[in-house]
């Protein structure tokens, strides 16, 4: 029996609302362990090839109280919320956790985690902050080999080249589906709500890839039916780490905007680059890590960040850019003024919204978004 589009969207929405309940059932069904990981650029394929389920830990919008004993209030809410979920046992269904080093705050999160929750599987992946030198590549390759060995020991499974290629192919196919979905959404902005689209992406990080891939391809066949009543939308690029709170997406929709491109870790960044099927799977993973779009947590050479932002705007013919930053995120705050300058040189309108996962009042966001989208609509 094929489920209809609506039903599949409901499944995705349910998994985003309550990811770990669903995971519990799934784990019991397939008899595998689940390993959580913090964003971004995480080589999930390695966990998958070790016969375990990689699950993104994305934080949530609940209030933070327990984590206050560990973090000052000037840490970003994504990190504080992640720790809160661990402290209040939301994450108990996970068998282990990996926190990649992407910024000073995640560095401390990992350090605290190890002390507060001893035992069980835990790893800190320390990515190189340089991306363009042979020495950085060698370093990353060694770091990933170490990580791979640890996974093998924990899972009691050997990650062979063959099993890793299988996982890579599964993930590549899945990424291609998401890219197709994005292309479809660009052409038919009325067919998918913003919230629906980003829910599909989030769900893909919270479900087993096999399951998500299957549901996603099924859903896409049905989507074509939704392509009626074309409507003029204001085309937007969104830049940041994550889109939080998700109500921002509802507001964009309601106010007549459509997101046509983004560099979010819970967006394009997750599926833009495939792993090339060449000589050696681990090296192929390394090469993908290093060639990805510049995430500001890494060292950005020359004008990469600005170039890539302008490119996103031009390629998708966007009317304007929304910087959707999490408060206290240093890496985004440092890049912002020069990115803003680059946009202004090209007369591309932009808006900076600073949010937190636990933000309760949406009124101010609405007012600012409304004014911005209205102005763009008149151009």
């Amino acid at each position, binding site marked *: 029996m094929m489920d209809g589009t609506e039903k599949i969207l409901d499944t995705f929405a349910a998994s985003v609302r309550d990811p770990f309940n669903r995971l519990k059932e799934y784990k019991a069904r397939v008899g595998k362990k689940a390993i959580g990981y913090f964003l971004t650029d995480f080589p999930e394929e390695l966990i998958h090839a070790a016969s375990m389920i990689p699950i993104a830990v994305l934080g949530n919008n609940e209030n933070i109280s327990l984590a206050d004993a560990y973090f000052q209030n000037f840490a970003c809410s994504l990190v504080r919320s992640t720790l809160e979920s661990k402290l209040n046992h939301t994450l108990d269904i996970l068998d282990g956790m990996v926190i990649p080093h992407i910024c000073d705050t995640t560095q401390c999160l990992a350090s605290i985690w190890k002390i507060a929750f001893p035992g069980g599987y835990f790893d800190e992946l320390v990515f190189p902050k340089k991306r363009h030198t042979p020495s950085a590549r060698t370093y990353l390759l060694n770091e990933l080999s170490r990580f791979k060995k640890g996974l093998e020991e924990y899972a009691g499974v050997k990650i062979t080249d063959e099993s890793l290629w299988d996982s890579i192919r599964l993930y590549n196919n899945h990424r291609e589906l998401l890219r197709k979905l994005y292309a479809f959404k660009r052409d038919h902005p009325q067919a998918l709500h913003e919230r629906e689209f980003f829910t599909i992406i989030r769900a893909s990080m919270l479900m087993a890839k096999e399951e998500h891939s299957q549901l996603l391809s099924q859903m896409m066949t049905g989507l074509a039916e939704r392509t009626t009543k074309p409507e003029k939308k204001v085309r937007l690029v969104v830049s940041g780490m994550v889109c939080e709170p998700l109500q921002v997406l509802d507001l964009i929709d309601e106010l007549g905007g459509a997101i046509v491109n983004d560099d979010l870790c819970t967006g394009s960044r997750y599926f833009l680059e495939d792993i090339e099927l060449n000589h050696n799977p681990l090296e192929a993973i390394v090469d993908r890590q290093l060639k990805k779009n510049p995430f500001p947590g890494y060292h*950005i050479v020359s004008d990469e960040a600005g170039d890539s932002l302008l490119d996103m705007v031009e390629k998708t013919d966007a009317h304007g850019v929304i910087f959707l930053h999490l408060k206290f995120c240093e890496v985004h705050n440092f890049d912002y003024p020069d990115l803003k300058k680059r946009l202004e040189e090209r007369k591309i309108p932009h808006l900076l919204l600073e949010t937190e996962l636990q933000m309760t009042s949406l009124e101010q966001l609405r007012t600012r978004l409304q004014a911005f989208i209205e102005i763009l609509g008149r151009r």
Partner: protein
Amino acid sequence: MGKGEGKKITTSELQRELIGNYYLEAKEAHQLQKRVAWVTAAFPVEVCYAMDIIPIYPENHAAVIGARRMGQTIIEIAQEAGYSQDLCSYALCDFGSIFSGQSPIGGLPSPDILLCCNNQCGTVTKWYEVLRRHFKVPLVVLDAPFIARDLNHNILNYFKEQLEELISALEALTGKSLDRDRLKEVLEISNETSNLWRQYLEMGTHIPSPITCFDGFIHMAPIVTLRGTLKARDYYQLLITETKEKLAKRLSAVSEEKYRLFWDNLPIWFQLRGLAEKFARHHANIVGASYTSLWAYSFDASEPMETLAWNYCDVLINRGIKDRATFAIQMLEKYAAHGLVMHSNRSCKPYSFGQYTIKKIVQEQVGKPSLVLEADICDPRFYQEEQIDEAIDSFFDTLTATHN
């Protein structure tokens, strides 16, 4: 030199002279056919001195801006340009000063190259990227991966390769090749100077202590900026002589020293004196600081690349919270201190997040309390005098209760 006949020069006079000349030379660098590099606080600057490149420290300049209480004005200029107040205020002081020309020392000479090592934080990488876009000069980043487990060969080899990349960049800049023997010489001087600095800091272990951490903060400028030069070495020789004289006279830095404490994190530059007085009133001396100890390097000049890699990767704040807690406990013992004073420094996320956990570990393992002061290095808007006073008073209430 000194004012009166036969009067010996003091370190404070010498520091004024040293730092004054240092900036003077840097400003005339181009006439002197020398190159100027802007460098981060824990950069392997020995390579610069070996190549006759003058290193300039925006962080040190920012500290001076903070200490002269120009922080708020200059930070606000950076904010107007779009830089968030949530960023490290050293970076904000630097940006504000560049954009407006405001500076307590007439500004910094502009850089020919930017040299950044992320062993202290990720902040500096992003900060120097901004500088690169502003000054349009080359930027070399030395990536010292965070020591999550141990300082292994993967990290060290990566760093050593980058040192060679750095040397090539500097050779391209100066058109001269590095004299490797000269580098060894510089490393020897740097090592000697670091040893003197350590010796000075350890004078705080005497009971009562002739020095305070606030003295350390004031005397650190030469070890940071002139490490690798004979001038810095001479400075610390003089400082040790001076301090030994105080020791001989059994002079205590704080009258009737009753409590001994150890400082964690950077200073609150605009409150050095104010805080010193607040603690002195309780007959408490903060006898040392984790921050000043960061510059107590230990080089083996016979293996330049190896020793540079070890020293500059293994920086205390490039290590995890567990290692930092162990360090804190060692220091409490070494300095016979009653507790920690932690500056929860809003600017410095990697140094400050984890302090609550360190506090807990220290309490559990050695039963010593920690006082957490929420503040900032340069931005006085994050310093709430009343709250600080309350926190200090109640800390001493507990300390007195446990010690009587």
